[in-house]
Structure formats: C-alpha cells, structure tokens
C-alpha cells in the first residue's frame, strides 16, 4: 500500500525501516460548527470516500454512516520576486457517525498558563518591534542605532 522508496535494508540499523503508507488521515479542528456526531479530517488526496469509510471502520471500529469529501486548494502567495507560488492541495473529509456518538475536539495543550504567558510576551515584543521600526520609517533598511 505504499509507493514510497525505502532505504535499502542494512542489518543492524532497523531504525530507518519506518512504514510510510500512502493513506493517512489527520484529525483537525472543524473549520465551522458541525453536528456532535461529525468529525473533520484532512486525508491523503488519493483516498476516496469509500477508503475513508473503510479506514475508520476496519482500523478504529467506528460506526461510519456517511462521508463527504472535497479538495481544498492550497493557499497562493506572491514571492519576493513577484511570481505566484501555491501550497499543496489537500482533501478534506467530513465523517458522519451514528446519532448517539459524540465527538469534541480535545484541547491539546490544555489550560497551560506557561503557554499563555509565552504568547503574551511574543505579542509584546512584536508590538515593540513595530513601534521601533515606525520611528525609522523614513530611512527603511537602516539599523535603528544609526543616528544620522
């Protein structure tokens, strides 16, 4: 089930022998409000609706009722040299489970105060940097310590 090239087998170095399947599913935070029995995934773009259903039913024993998918286009950006680049496209799958099933996306970091403080500090430094650069707006590219 994999089209990836593995490194040649060498005895004594089993770490490199990682199984990298083509079919993968990534559980993501829903982009909009869903029903409690619905889950959103980003899946590998080769997977069909039936594949998604089989994957969840056979490996995780989930009662899947319905799967709908769509291909989301990757974001485009203007590169510094003025040409447009695009990120990879991805396939999004919405899976409907049975009525009585409930899923809430877990809080991965929890209520971590340290993280919040870090965010706060980062915000402050960004603001300070913005203020500093604002002073030097007439001579852009010149370091802030340059007084002339």
């Amino acid at each position, binding site marked *: 089930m994999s089209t990836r090239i593995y490194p040649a087998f060498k005895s004594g170095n089993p770490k490199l022998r990682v199984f990298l399947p083509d079919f993968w599913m990534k559980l993501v935070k829903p982009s909009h*409000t869903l029903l409690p029995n619905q889950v959103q995934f980003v899946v590998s773009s080769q997977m069909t609706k039936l594949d998604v259903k089989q994957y969840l039913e056979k490996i995780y024993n989930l009662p899947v009722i319905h799967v709908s998918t769509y291909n989301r286009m990757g974001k485009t950006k203007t590169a510094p040299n003025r040409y*447009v680049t695009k990120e990879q496209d991805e396939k999004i799958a919405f899976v409907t489970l049975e009525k009585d099933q409930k899923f809430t996306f877990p809080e991965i970091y929890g209520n971590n105060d340290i993280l919040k403080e870090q965010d706060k500090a980062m915000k402050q430094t960004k603001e300070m940097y913005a203020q500093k650069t604002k002073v030097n707006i007439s001579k852009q590219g010149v370091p802030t310590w340059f007084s002339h």
Partner: protein
Amino acid sequence: MAFKLSVANEATKKTLISQSRRISSYFQPSESEYVSKAVYPPILDLSREARKERKIETIAQNITKLGTVEEKLVELNAPKYYGWWSLNLNERAISYNALPFTQFSTRTCLVNELPSIYNDVEAIALKSLPAVKDKLKDLILQEFEYVTQRTNRRGETKTTATEEDRCSRNFIPLLNRLLVNQLSLQNEDLKTTEIDCNPRLEAFWSCGGIEPDKILRKVREKNEKFLKGKVDDPIDRPIQYYGTPCLSMRHNKPLPQLLDRNSGLSVEGTVPSWNLDPRVMGYKYKHCRATNVPGFWPGTENQHGYMSILTRGYLKQREYQLTASDNQDALHVQAILHSFAWTLSQACYLGFGPYTELTYPISTQTIITDGQNYSLSAYQLNTCALYDKHSGPANPFRNVCYSTNEMKLYDIIENGEVKGFNDDLLKSLIKFYLIKPVEPQVNMRPYLSPELYISNVSDTERRKKVEEGFKHLFSNRPRHILKEEIYHWEKIYKIDHDTRPMEKKKRFFDIGGKAPGMKRMDEFNPRYVPKHMRNPPKKSRRGRLPVQPSIKL
C-alpha cells in the same frame, strides 16, 4: 426698512403697485389646521436591528398588499434575477438524522398517532371493510403475484429504487380507484375530487434563525465599526422544495381542521431548536427560482388538497448509500416536507405565502406506500410565514403532523394467497377516504383583490406583462444570458495577486460592479429594437431645429 418707489409718474406707480400685489397673497391661518392635542409621528428605534426588522416587515407588507396571486408569486422573485441562493430539498434525497432540522425549518411538532377526527367515521369504516378487503386482496395478487411488472422504461437507469417506484406507480392508481369506487357511496364528495398523477410540487419559503456561514462571518468581521459583537447574529435561509407525489386528489371544498388553531398542540407543541447551516447535513445550495406550485395552475376550480399518495423506493437506495437504521425517521421527514410544501403552495394560491401569515389553518392527508408497507399521516398548517424572527418564540403557532410508524398490510404472498392481512391498517386507510370536505366558514382569500388572478385584470398592459413574466419564471428555464462567474485563473492572477495591471478592466469584479447573484429582476438591458421599428421612431439629429421652449410668452 420700507422700500420707496422713485417713480415720477403717479399713474405708473399705481400700476406697479397693483402688479406687485397681484403676485403676493395674504396669509390666513385656517382654524381647521390646528387640533387641540398635538399628534406627533411615532418615535422610531434607530438601532441597526430595529431598522433591519422594519425593512423586512415593509417587504412583507408590500407582498401582502398586491392584489392577484401571480403578482405575489412574481414579487417573491423580484430581488433576484438569477434566483435565490437557496437550500434545495428533494422528496427522495433525505439526509441521515434529518428529522430535527426538518421539524425546525417547517416549524412542525410531530405526534406519533392519528388525530381524533378519524374516530367519527369508525363505524362506517368497519361496515365497508369486508367488501374492500376482498377486492384489495385480489388487487394485491394481480399486481404482485400474477403480473410481471415492467420495471424500467427506456432511457431510465435501472436501480433498486426506480424498480420499486415503478411497481408502486402501477399499483397506487389502482388502489385509489378501488377505494374511491367502493367508498363513494359513503362519501359523496369523492365523486367530485380531481386526481393528478405525478403532479409537479414545488414550494419556497424563508426560514430565519440560522447561523451565518464562514463567508458572511468574514464580511461582518471586516465591518467591525457597525457589527461589533453581532458577527454570529442569525440570518434567513431561503428553502426550495421539489417533489412529485405519485397521486394527489383535490376538491373544491377544504378539509376540516384537525385541531383548534389557538389551543393545544398548535400553540404548545414542541419544535426542536436548530441553528446550524443545513449544509452540515449534506444538503446543497443552488441558485433557483422561488416557485410555489401545488400541482395545478392558479384559477383551477378544485384547489383544496384532499389527499396525496407517495412512493418510497428511495429507501432502497438509502440502504447502501447511508443506512437503513433511520428509515422510520426518513419516512416522517418525507411526510412532513411533502405535507408542508403542498399546503404552503396551496396557501400561496389563496393569497398567503412565505411572507404573509395564514388567517385559518389548512390541512391535508398523506399516505406513503410501496404496496405492502404503509405510513399514514395527517397535517395541519397553522403558520406559513417563518421568515426572520417568526421561526422563533415570536411566532405563537406551530404546524402539527400526525404520523404513524410504517405498518405492513400483509406479511407474505404464498401459493396465490395473501397471508397475515392487517385489518386495522385497512380500516385506517378507509377512514382517510371517508373524511368529508366542509364548506368554509371564513373568508378564504382575505389578502386578494376581487379579481383574484391576473387573467381577470382588465388593464391589458399589466395583464400581459405579469402573465408573461409569471409563466417564464415558473417554467424554471435558465436565463438567456447565464450568470457571470469568476474563473479560477482570474481569482489567482487578478483578484488575489495583481499580476495583470495593464489588462483592460472589463469584468464585473474589475470595475467594482455588483456581484451577478445580487442582480435584481428589474436590472436588465431592454430588448433591442431596430431603429426603424421603434415607437415613436428615433429621429435623426441632422437638420433638427433648436429646442423650442414649451412656455408660451
């Protein structure tokens, strides 16, 4: 300071004064202009919500004020040239777990039994049961045992669903004929009912109280100055229903009401709450016309629905596309949607509609069958205006659907015999045909002018214009010039990244024009008429005299 005339001649002075007096007037306040108590215009709430609500109410009033059925129906379409971006519901495509949304969007409370009105005809039904039973058994044998059904027609894709539907479509008219023949002695009104086979049923309504989608939320977030804290305010969603019942019967008198409109379930029934975008259920949005067609055109004599019979072949398809575990819910959904759509579109022909509230209830009966399994339901439409806040607690009324679970008429056909026949079910089926339509006690069309339909209007120009517009709209044909779209390359290279600044700006998004979906129905270029055929003919400018003043000196 007084102005002194310095005129030497006394005579000229006199004439001048008399002339100036001619154009002046003496101010004389009349007594009637004043009243003892001052009356001021009402003080209006100028907040955004109040203004918005007033705007919607004036739209609703403008539709209600119109005199004829066709004008009201066309007016619903007036804001959208390419049709409303509305939720498409289909009789045969019912999502998993769709009952809560269906009940909310139609404001219906569900009761799992038949109403007490059917107890009145219990005795007559029991009497006529044996005669009907024998004939029905023969009919079942004929249709499902002796005759090989031709299940698919040329050009039709053969699926399990279409196969079953074909069988039901052969059986249902025969069943109806049998019951009408047998019971028309007991219920004389059956003789005058009109029967439609596979009529076109379409209904449009606007449902409030649904949360905004991602795009609208983004727009509101940008407009932070006015919409701070109101990003998640609910919006209206237009809903368009399409369906084709197998058979429908209509009469010139309406059915009696099933329960009182102002008490009991009609006021206290529970309707599940819902605020999600219906797309989470797997339903789709599409640009479509707001059409309300109950299977006949305005002005028909028999325009009160009596009963309709639906097929249920789609359940076979649903079994492997979704699941068979909630088939019972799907049947309830089918019954509710069909009954609501049919009664609503009938209400539209009586002068009510999605923006005009009913003044009396409208009821109907629905049977869903494949020949063996039957679900019976009776529906009463108490409220049809569900726009804006009317889908919430501001609306005192609820629609009521009495719907039974599916029941088997017989267990099996073996050796040329129908086994396990369900007499109770047949009795309830007979009762549906014994309910008599009643003469209406109220004004049936309070919001229509005496002309009722546009064909009765004497003003030729107005009649022609509205009639043509109505027929074109309700044919559901696409516009001659299709809606402009933004191509993918344009989105990337013109809108998101300005890589073609030298190109001539012609498209609607280049020149900052209106989005094509927002185009109103009256915004179109008039049809081209060659110069020589114009009335009055356009004159050449050459040799024309300068414009003469119309005021004669």
